[in-house]
């Protein structure tokens, strides 16, 4: 089997050496180049076209996320593995959206990095377990927030529309054929769901979130 060519991008020189030594000991992995600076790395990668790039996120000058976007565009077939200290979902999300298909923490062992390399090389993706949990929690948080927005009942949307016409509680009650107390109850739950402090605020939020036109 042909050896896998790898390019390392990390501003920490000793760390790059350690990774190189560790990977080359495997036999079928070859480090074809390395750089501590994003712009230089992008140029070299466009020329060398390695099978894999291992990228750090925090670097002086051009950040890792920007580098990932550039090299993914320059060499679309290449696999990109993020190797970083940060487990925050935002980085994972941005990196994978930018073109990375592996995400490994520097605090992980050698096995995790090797697993990621094998997986990405075979066309799959690899997220380290420590990264996956916060990411899922974060996505669940998004889902909860989205869910709340779609929770407005038809009646509440009608009340909102009346509000945006500047109608008073009395007028809303008669136009929807419900009691004024019911209107007040709807308003209360609307404020709650929208996070609004008063009528005008509720309408403003609803317009912004395009709940009404």
């Amino acid at each position, binding site marked *: 089997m042909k050896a896998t060519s790898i390019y390392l991008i990390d501003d*920490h020189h*000793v*760390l790059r050496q*350690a*990774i190189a*030594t*560790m990977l080359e*000991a495997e036999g079928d992995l070859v480090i074809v180049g390395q750089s501590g600076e994003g712009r230089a790395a992008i140029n070299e990668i466009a020329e060398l076209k390695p099978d894999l790039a291992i990228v750090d996120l*925090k670097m002086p000058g051009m*950040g890792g996320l920007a580098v990932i976007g550039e090299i993914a565009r320059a060499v679309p077939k290449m696999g990109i593995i993020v190797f970083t*200290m*940060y*487990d*925050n*979902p*935002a*980085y994972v999300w941005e990196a994978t959206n930018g073109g990375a298909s592996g995400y490994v*923490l*520097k*605090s*992980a*062992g*050698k096995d995790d990095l090797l697993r990621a390399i094998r997986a990405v090389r075979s066309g799959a993706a690899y997220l380290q377990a*420590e990264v996956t949990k*916060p990411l899922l*929690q*974060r996505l*669940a*948080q*998004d889902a*909860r*927030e989205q869910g*709340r927005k779609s929770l407005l009942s038809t009646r509440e949307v009608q009340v909102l529309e009346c509000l945006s016409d500047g109608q008073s509680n009395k007028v809303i009650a008669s136009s929807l054929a419900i009691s004024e107390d019911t209107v007040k109850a709807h308003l209360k739950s609307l404020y709650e769901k*929208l*996070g*609004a*402090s*008063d009528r*005008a*605020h509720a309408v*403003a*939020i609803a317009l*912004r979130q395009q709940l009404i036109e």
Partner: protein
Amino acid sequence: MLIRRARQRERPKLVTVLEARDHIEADSRFEQHTLAHLRQAEREVAWLRWLGIVAWVLILLWRDMTSDVGNAWAVLGGGLIYTAWSHWRIDRAGSIRAAARLTSVGDPILAALMCAMTGGIGSLFYPFFYFTLLATVFRLGGRDVVLILALNAALSVVLFFFASAPDIRLTDLTIAIFYLVFATLLGVMLARWARKNLSLATSREKAFRLARDRTRLLLRRLIGAQEEERRLVAGDLHDRLGHQLFVLQQGLGSLADHDKLPDDLKLRLKSLGNEAQACANDVRLMMNDLRPTVLDDFGFCEAVREYVARMSVNVPFDLTLKIDDTVEFDERAAEAMLFRIVQESLINIRKHAKATRVVISLAPPVYAGGGAVLTISDDGEGFDPHKTEPGHLGLLTMRERAEALGGTFEISTISGEGTTVTVTLPEGHAA
């Protein structure tokens, strides 16, 4: 380090500026107090003047003390006009000092006229000279005192020569003038005592304000320094410790794989490697606790979402987030401030509130030109804001964080019904 040292050098200047400003403010405050006191004294003297006029009326009605009734009535008329005018002027005069100077001349002249009608130096009204002298000296002080004394003495001399009864001798004039000097000295003494009290009160107030401003400045600087320090430490942890631990771990790992080593040594090297890995993991978590880089790279909304996502599985209450993404910040400091307030509030709620439901919301300005509003409300026990322990800095720090950026911080709590923290950003920090 260079940057930090440069900043330290700048800082004392700030305090100097603050102190200088305070001196000017204190001086002008002292002046304001003095003027207010003078106005008050002028008002009280005006009422005494009315009393003098009443005495004159009584004399006119009850006793035939004056030889010239027509002129006595004229003095009454003039006195009434003068008294009414001086009273009316107190609140309308542009300079209360000038008004006081005018009456300090007017009063002895009125007294002299009264005496002239009623027997000169020996008149029942002569003590009015002492009274007016005391009153004016007490109010004015300084060089004016000598002038007023001279005026009073001159008027007495005139009275002695032109209006006194034949049995009044030079000794009487001498005694009268001696009493005038005596009254002047008494007035000066009283005025000194009053000024001293006033300046003592003003300097106490100044000291208090200075101490308060210094505390506030220190607290704000402390908050800023803490944030900066945390960022630096987190950065150092990342750049140095984190990477070195990885290198160490790899070194140990590759040693452990070495063929020539005995098995028990391999095992120990492996466990050391695992130890290094655990360390690296701790460093990673500490970095995030110190200063989430997400805050710098993605801003408040993402940082708080991530924080809440993490927290919501670890807290005993239902945590709801209502973030309006259209809120835009134009300063990282404002986002860090809001994030720390959310953190601090959630820690407080978890520790003390016994809440079942917590809502964090970030809403855009309620009115055009206003600032974005962050609220954190819980349905917990609430607390008595007046009974918080003095050593508890949480609330104070939150308030200072908000106010340091020109925002407002409000906390409303009802015992048994929960607490709401409201932070309003100033216009310009968020739109």
